[in-house]
């Protein structure tokens, strides 16, 4: 039974906004001194959530991959273009020809062919599929990874809760504390190398601690304490043996080859290492899917990098018994037009596109939804982005209606509306 079956919203049905009341805020500030945030107090459930050991890897296909060249090929039609379909290890499931490795492990992956949305603008759709919300409302919504690291992360870890390999969105109104720890490429994070011997570094830290006590003023105790916690975490990160997780040179050449010697391939390998080391959420970004021209050759090239990496990531995690607790999400901001434009490209098409999920309790080897023969419509089981986010939450054992108080004094749910896709978890 899901321990989250009783949502805790009833705890604050009538509180308009705790922030609006200075008195209440004072209470909150006073509580902050004992390291409990107001939100935690209101919800009281954060610690309960953290016990669930669930993780997530987002493979983000920046630009919007074509559904017809990925998991919904339509060979022999005008719309399908020259792309052929290949048989996978699961009878009846066909993928586009560019995905031979993934076809081998199709039994572990669920392909949703019927995702439908209305947003055809890169930035807005990127925002929507990272946060679950459309931009606007006077708020900057947090990256889903920030939400996860807030709800599921543990500050006891030596490594950050949320790592992004490549640029992504930030924590929005959750603030810098939950921002992704962003890596540029697969190099180890910047500024983690000790510049002085460890002994001297520790001496410095203790001097810093002593000198800080003189900083007086309102809130200074809390300020100094949070500051210290951050420095402790940063120092732990610098000194931890787990920092090795960032160093790919520790992997066998054969493993590195299997993931593919591409940025994305090595990024996936790094993601696997980080998940193993205890990171809760990892995003790996793959750019270049915005194929307004030369769609077919460019998709072949991009899939050439993503296919082995994705497949290897799934089988590697499975081998390590981590797949059941790790949700892998493959998606981009939208699909591409079934009509091929005069530059043999495809344009933006949010009306019907693909998302692939694996691990985290998702039943693989299935296709969800169906599009019409010309690919223009979803004809079976339409799935909206908010349904996707509800499903992610379910896989990560989170209540999608968990609320966080936003700076405008409005409680914001992790996902507003939508229902989870039951077939995924059957």
């Amino acid at each position, binding site marked *: 039974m899901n321990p989250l079956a009783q949502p805790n919203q009833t705890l604050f049905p009538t509180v308009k906004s705790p922030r*609006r009341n200075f008195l209440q805020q004072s209470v909150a500030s006073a509580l902050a001194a004992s390291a409990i945030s107001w939100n935690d107090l209101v919800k009281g459930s954060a610690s309960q959530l953290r016990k669930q050991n669930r993780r997530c890897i987002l493979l983000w296909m920046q630009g919007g991959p074509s559904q017809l060249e990925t998991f919904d090929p339509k060979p022999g039609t005008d719309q399908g273009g020259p792309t052929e379909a290949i048989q996978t290890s699961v009878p009846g499931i066909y993928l586009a020809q560019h995905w031979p490795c993934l076809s081998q492990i199709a039994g572990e992956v669920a392909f949703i062919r019927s995702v439908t949305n209305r947003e055809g603008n890169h930035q807005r759709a990127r925002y929507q599929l990272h946060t679950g919300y459309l931009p606007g409302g006077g708020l900057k919504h947090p990256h889903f990874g920030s939400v996860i690291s807030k709800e599921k992360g543990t500050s006891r870890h030596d490594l950050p809760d949320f790592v992004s390999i490549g640029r992504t969105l930030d924590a929005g109104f959750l*603030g810098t504390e939950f921002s992704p720890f962003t890596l540029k490429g697969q190099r180890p994070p910047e500024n983690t190398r000790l510049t002085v011997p460890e002994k*001297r570094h520790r001496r410095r830290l203790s001097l810093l601690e002593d000198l*800080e006590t003189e900083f007086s003023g309102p809130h200074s105790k809390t300020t100094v304490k949070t500051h210290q916690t951050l420095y402790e*975490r940063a120092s732990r990160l610098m000194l931890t043996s787990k920092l090795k997780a960032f160093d790919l040179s520790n992997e066998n050449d054969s493993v590195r080859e299997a993931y593919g010697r591409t940025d994305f391939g090595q990024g996936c390998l790094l993601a696997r290492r980080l998940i193993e080391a205890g990171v809760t959420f990892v995003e790996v970004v793959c750019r270049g899917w915005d194929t307004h021209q030369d769609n077919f050759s460019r998709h072949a090239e991009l899939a050439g990098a993503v296919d082995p990496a994705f497949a290897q990531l799934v089988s590697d995690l499975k081998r390590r018994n981590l797949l059941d607790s790790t949700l892998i999400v493959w998606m981009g901001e939208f699909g591409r037009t079934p009509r091929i434009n005069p530059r043999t490209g495809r344009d933006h098409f949010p009306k019907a596109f693909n998302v692939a999920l694996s691990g985290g309790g998702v039943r693989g080897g299935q296709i969800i939804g169906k599009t019409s023969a010309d690919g223009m419509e979803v004809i079976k089981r339409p799935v909206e982005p908010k349904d996707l986010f509800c499903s992610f939450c379910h896989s990560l054992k989170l209540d999608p209606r968990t609320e966080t108080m936003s700076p405008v004094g409005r409680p914001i749910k992790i996902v507003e509306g939508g229902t989870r896709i039951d077939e995924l978890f059957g």
Partner: protein
Amino acid sequence: MNLFQSPIHPIRSWIAVIPLSALSYVLILPLHVTGETTDLLSRFSPGTVALSIDKLMQDKEPPASSSSQRKIDDIEFLRRATLDMTGRMPSPSLMKSFENLSQPYKRINLIDSLLETPEFAQRWAQYWCDVMLYRALDMRANLGASALKSWLADQFSSNVGWDSIARDLITATGDIREDGNTFLILAQSGRAPELAAETSRLFLGIQIQCAQCHDHPYDSWKREQFHELAAFFSRVRIRRSDGMPRSFKVVSGDRIQPRQSRRMISPENMLTQFDTNNDLKLSFEEIPRRFRRLMTRADKDKDNALSLAEMNFLREKQQRMKRNVRRHEYRMPNLSDPQKQGTLMHPVFFVNDSSPGKMQSDLMRRNALADYITSTNSFWFSRAFVNRVWYELMGWCFYDPLDDLGPDRNPHHPAVLEKVSEGFVHNGFDLKWLVKTIGQTQAYQSSHTSDSLGNTPYSVWPHRINADALNQMLQQILDKGRSKRRRGKDLSKANRQRKGRPFREKQFREIFGFDPSSSNDEKTGSIQQALYLMNHPNLQSRMRAYGNTVLGNLLQNTNSEQLVIRRLYRIVLARDVTPKEEKRCMHYLSKSDNYREGFEDILWCLINSSEFRFVH
């Protein structure tokens, strides 16, 4: 009557050429004290308003709580005012001359001089740029940021009122790289609903966007009212500019007929007119030259001939496009069926139901909106601004959260807010007047000493220093000794930039930046920030005690260890070291194998302290 009503005051424009670095010399001059005395008499002069603020606050405050605050000394005031107003650290020489100055009005004079530095205008331009940039929904906004900053800095330094600035932002047209005032529209992609929400937030402090989808749950705004506000922006468009580098322009989309106004002859007529061989298709040769372009667009089956079906298809498409052009009038989406056409909305200003009328041109609408928003009897416009600037200087605000003024909110110290807003309106919405007034209050010159909140503070609350100011501070402190020695040679701009690499603005902002509209609890530090300050190689090399560094030079010119510690505290934290701290540092030095390394560690600690990161 009032000093601030003329856009450029002669004395002020003369002072405006003095950079912050030269301030220590200026302070020695007896600055316009005469101006100040006449100023004091006016009802809305900074001095008078500051006095009444203090009185209003003290009346409300029970005397018991006065023990929890104290008036800060000159040197604390100097750091606070310089950082708040210009985003820079006071130099040790400025600290010295300010301390030694015995003038009755020296704090007021300091504020006056700070207001006239170019750094003041830059700091507030950067502030407003961040306010908009952190809520930008369009990445292209980054292309317009530098134009916005230089435009805003010009406005602030020449005392242009906030009403006029707001109007320019609302009614802007032009190239985003040249006309800085197009930024607001660019940042919201020129989209009407988003612009409605953002203008309301920025200029009125009203969160009306919740009404976008439903009647506002807490406030009295109706869903229609939000969309009526959006209708003011329905004709704003963003287009590609010609030429390089890549740029965009904000234009008015007033033209009802788009370019393709040339009517197409109906497909049936085309056939009867031109189909000479009666095969019910138009071949390339049969079509007159002027229609040949059709062939490329309509010939779907690529047989080099147009059938009736193909032409009909194209015609439908064109008609669809024409219908889309009609979108220059705003429609409220139909919630029950988003595919359906929504309800046509006309611009009406939700606060007082003013309307410019139906079917007005783009600029007429936007100008009308600017009129309504900036009207001098607008309750919200002045308050929203005062609330923000107060928060920047005092670290707490009347309305918390900052962007949510109402209508049914209870501010702290409503009488004070009322008083300041009144003066602000009376002084032509002048930022300098506002900063000067707040700076002169006793509240601004006090510190809260107790750790508990108790009552609403009547003093400055510590606030986190933003990325740009921090960047500047690090450069000021760590490059100090270096630039001195190199003055006169090899300081070309490119060279300086290369030297300043660790402080590269963009990277630094990514790590240290925060949304200036967020509350104090949200402006937290991060692991990356700590890592940067602890380990960044170029910062580390500047903290070395050898060679041409701030510490190297100090050690070379000073022969007492105590003195070095005292100077370090002055340079980094802009205050004197306490005896306890000095003792601890001396102890640390005595335990160090190498006293130079010991000093490096002390400098490292000061830079990494939480005190360094706050205005307090």
